[in-house]
């Protein structure tokens, strides 16, 4: 009897048995990757290739024309592109930093401090993982309006700071910090703030990186807030501007397609680059991501 010996996950080297898996997975990889590759090709297509019939997938003469046109389109508008870029960078940096600060602080307290209401807070946050923001767009609007935040940067920043998933993942990581470390610090007379800054933060860097990516993605690509909460065009985000540009010019004109593809690529690249840099930390965090 040829005994089944149990397979090994995460093998160290290539084995014949893996060929089956490659065959199974490659079509999926191709299907998933093609649209992304398409948008890259499309963004660099010169006019005659955009017009080509039958349509061509691959760019033979890559050009930066579409990016130049994108810059030109914004120059003719009353608000320069640089203003939108500034808005988005500002909004993103403030939101991500505030979100990281608040969720790591809350995660530390929920994990390591004992206080009344702690369990309830954790349960509420766990239920809020299921929060579908689009479902409550309207009441959110009413609240933002009541608070007088319409037409301020705060309307694009504050609603995005509390991210239940981010707190959840960070807390899972803080749970792994041994209590003995914290007790030792107490004995040395360290304050809670000091423990938070010098013990917790350095030990949970992977979780912070993961939370940063998640929050960054939500803020960077968000258009709802700029759309519903902001009337003043000079305060709107780059994502919103790119979206108006693509919906106004695309589909009707072929020339617009190239500009739209360029705009999409510009919005997508920062996400991709950030993820590539931090992917090790993300996988590390996900290993502790379970709901217990």
């Amino acid at each position, binding site marked *: 009897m040829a005994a089944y010996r149990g397979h*090994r996950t995460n093998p160290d080297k290539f084995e014949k048995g893996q060929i089956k898996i490659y065959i199974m997975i490659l079509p999926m990889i191709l299907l998933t990757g093609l649209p992304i590759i398409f948008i890259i090709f499309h963004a660099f297509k010169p006019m005659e290739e955009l017009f080509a019939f039958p349509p061509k997938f691959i760019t033979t003469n890559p050009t930066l024309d579409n990016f130049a046109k994108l810059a030109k389109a914004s120059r003719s508008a009353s608000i320069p592109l640089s203003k939108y870029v500034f808005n988005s960078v500002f909004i993103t940096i403030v939101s991500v930093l505030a979100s990281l600060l608040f969720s790591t*602080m809350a995660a530390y307290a929920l994990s390591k401090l004992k206080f009344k209401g702690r369990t309830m807070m954790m349960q509420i946050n766990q239920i809020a993982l299921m929060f579908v923001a689009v479902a409550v767009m309207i009441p959110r609007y009413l609240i933002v309006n009541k608070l007088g935040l319409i037409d301020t940067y705060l309307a694009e920043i504050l609603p995005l700071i509390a991210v239940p998933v981010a707190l959840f993942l960070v807390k899972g990581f803080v749970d792994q910090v041994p209590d003995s470390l914290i007790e030792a610090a107490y004995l040395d007379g360290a304050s809670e703030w000091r423990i938070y800054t010098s013990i917790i933060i350095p030990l949970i860097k992977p979780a912070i990186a993961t939370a940063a990516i998640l929050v960054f993605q939500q803020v960077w690509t968000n258009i709802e807030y700029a759309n519903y909460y902001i009337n003043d065009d000079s305060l709107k985000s780059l994502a919103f501007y790119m979206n108006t540009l693509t919906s106004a010019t695309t589909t009707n004109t072929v020339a617009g397609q190239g500009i739209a593809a360029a705009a999409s690529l510009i919005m997508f690249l920062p996400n*991709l680059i950030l993820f590539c840099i931090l992917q090790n930390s993300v996988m590390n965090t996900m290993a502790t991501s379970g709901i217990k």
Partner: protein
Amino acid sequence: MFLPKAKVGARSHSNRAGYLFTGPYAILFIIFILAPVVTAIGLSFTNFNTIQTPKVVGFLNYINLITADDVFMKYVLPNTVKYALIVGLGGYALAFLLAWALSNLTKGPRTVFALILYSPSMTTGVAMAVLWKIMFTGDQTGYINSWLMDIGAIDEPIIWLSSSQYLLPIVIIIGLWSSMGIGFLSILAGLLNVDESLYEAAAIDGVKNRFQEMIYVTIPSMKPQMLFAAVMQIVGAFQNGTISTMLAGNPTPGYGAQLIVNHIEDYGFIRYEMGYAAAVSVVLLLIVQAFSVFFNRLFGNADE
């Protein structure tokens, strides 16, 4: 030794520190997550046109939703159920299978593949709506039409995005395409961290193949990740529902791809019937909750 220890106990039981540290998050959470949900529930029992004060109407909105809203019953609900089953549950199964396959590869290719599979979920709707519009252009210059005509599958171009027949399948495909998000990463990480000795023990206990191994060893030892991924997958599926209006406007042609999220936008931001829209929102939140209860039963620990 007794004195400092008691001090440690007292310090870690500090209510004040607990509230100071959770305060900033809690305040924003209450204002922008809890309060909107409570407001939605409250508004769902009223008639509110955004100008006059809301009038309490009891369960009228819910009754109307079930008995009088033909569009909801005939199109929105069936579309949403189909979408949630295929993109939510199907996407979840797909995420597990792909993650499982990847976990059997060496680190290099695995990382590259995981990145490719994850990348669509970074595009979140808007940025990529334009891409799909180009691909599905309704004449022979559209890529999909052109390819299908090349291989002889169709004779004349299909007007994809104005067709109530094809729109939902397109939205579902796009939903699946972008559904390998953090749920997928969580499953992959879970798979890579299953204790290897469990597999050896299981082999001795008579597990004969990889399928049995998956059912008896792998899944039970990563229940927490399975549950987290399930919740993320379902929420992601509904969150992504706005893609149909980006492709075809709101309402979608013939309500072909009208999902519950689009129905909310339709009543809330186009007709300004906020009370009714709020009732639909509550129904959506309940649907998501129901899925989560189901997965909790499936993966939650009975002894807890």
